[in-house]
């Protein structure tokens, strides 16, 4: 086995780290990725996990729920350990201000220096990036744009959570805890890998073109030349007062080659509409309708398995809104079971990253 997972529901940081270490005993871990509930004191977690795996590169973040060992959980910690065969090499960089383009460039310069390949020329079939970012930063779009401009290597990941408290998220790397920023980990896997991006929505035949927006604030002022709230309510066929009830099941999305890149509405602010990710003037968005998360996710996993000729491990960055919908429909057990038989860890995120920043999606890194 080249990749192995562990899960702990113990109460304290010390007990949790010891529990996970026990499950990974005799496993020669070059790298350990972990996701932990904020019930474990974030200030202590990073150092404890690094001390527990002193010979490994250790990184992770806080969550709004965890996924591991065929279960969806709250108040736990999950870890994935990789041997040197699974991950031949890795370099982890932390940028404490995700809006600081100069610092992102410095992180990329460090990757280039370490791997001795310019990022612009790095082969995306041989390298992959993991991104874990402060889920309350609101900086993900710019960050993903900057990264995407600099390299063809795919960075996939999630925005850290804080168990729906919306106060502070935490990132963990190399024994230190960060309450802001972004972790960029560039990996050179020794096994084949691919990506899953799955969202359970179908596009309805209703277009909302952003005619006026405050892009920095993720706010749409007008769709189709009308106040945003009015245009959205009309599209879903209800009143402005009732429309927020439709946000979860009827978000909107940028549909590219039949693939939605979901933009989830957060709230109305007067007649403006605030989103969980960026919307730009001129974008033509489609009204979406939710479908079957369980069926769609199963299909996406099966497709990845087929593409790779087998599937040994998955890292799942699953939107908190998907988790809330699964909880509402009492489907968390079925969702967890989709990953039985595959070494899987994941967490409920405040945003997902794959090519760009998206919502109501699960982005997954899959290993053969």
């Amino acid at each position, binding site marked *: 086995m080249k990749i192995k997972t562990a899960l702990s529901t113990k109460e304290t940081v010390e007990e949790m780290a010891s529990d996970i270490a026990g499950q990974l005993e005799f496993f020669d871990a070059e790298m350990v990725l972990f996701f932990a509930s904020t019930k474990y004191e974030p200030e202590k977690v990073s150092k404890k996990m690094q001390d527990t795996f002193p010979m490994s590169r250790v990184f992770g973040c806080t969550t709004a729920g965890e996924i591991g060992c065929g279960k969806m959980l709250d108040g736990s910690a999950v870890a994935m350990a990789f041997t040197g065969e699974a991950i031949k090499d890795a370099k982890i960089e932390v940028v404490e201000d995700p809006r600081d383009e100069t610092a992102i460039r410095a992180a990329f310069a460090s990757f280039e220096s370490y791997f001795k390949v310019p990022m*612009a020329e790095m082969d*995306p079939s041989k390298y992959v990036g993991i991104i874990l970012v402060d889920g309350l930063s609101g900086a993900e*779009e710019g960050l*993903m*744009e900057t990264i*995407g*401009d*600099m390299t*063809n290597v*795919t960075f996939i990941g999630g925005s850290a959570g804080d168990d729906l408290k919306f106060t502070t998220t935490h990132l963990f790397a190399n024994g230190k805890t960060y309450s802001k920023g972004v972790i960029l980990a560039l990996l050179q896997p020794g096994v084949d890998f691919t990506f899953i991006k799955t969202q359970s929505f179908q596009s309805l035949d209703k277009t909302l073109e952003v005619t006026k927006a405050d892009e920095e604030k993720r706010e749409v002022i007008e769709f189709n030349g009308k106040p945003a709230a009015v245009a959205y309510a009309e599209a879903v066929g209800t009143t402005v007062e009732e429309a927020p009830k439709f946000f979860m099941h009827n978000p909107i999305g*940028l549909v*590219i*080659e039949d693939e939605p*890149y979901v933009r989830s509405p957060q709230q109305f602010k007067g007649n403006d509409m605030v989103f969980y990710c960026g919307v*730009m*003037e*001129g*974008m*033509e968005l489609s009204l979406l309708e939710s479908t079957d998360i369980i069926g769609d996710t199963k299909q996406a996993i099966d497709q990845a398995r087929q593409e790779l000729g087998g599937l040994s491990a998955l890292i799942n960055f699953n939107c908190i809104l998907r988790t809330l919908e699964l909880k509402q429909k009492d489907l968390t057990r079925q969702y967890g079971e989709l990953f039985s038989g595959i070494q899987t860890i994941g967490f409920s995120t405040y945003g997902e990253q794959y*090519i*760009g920043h998206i919502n109501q999606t699960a982005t997954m890194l899959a290993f053969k």
Partner: protein
Amino acid sequence: MAGKIRQMIDSIINQRAKDNPMLERVIKTKLILKGINPAKFNAQSDDDPVVIGKLEKMMRELK
């Protein structure tokens, strides 16, 4: 002036995708997420300075 945006988009896709269809799709997606839909620009499209600025930034990264 017209058509500069189409030229820049083609140049970015050619240089970055290097005839790899999968990369070509990814780069087009990145452009659309930036608010630049390649399908909307042709040789007659106006030279919008805001769009040109975004594309110039992308081109600088190639050097």
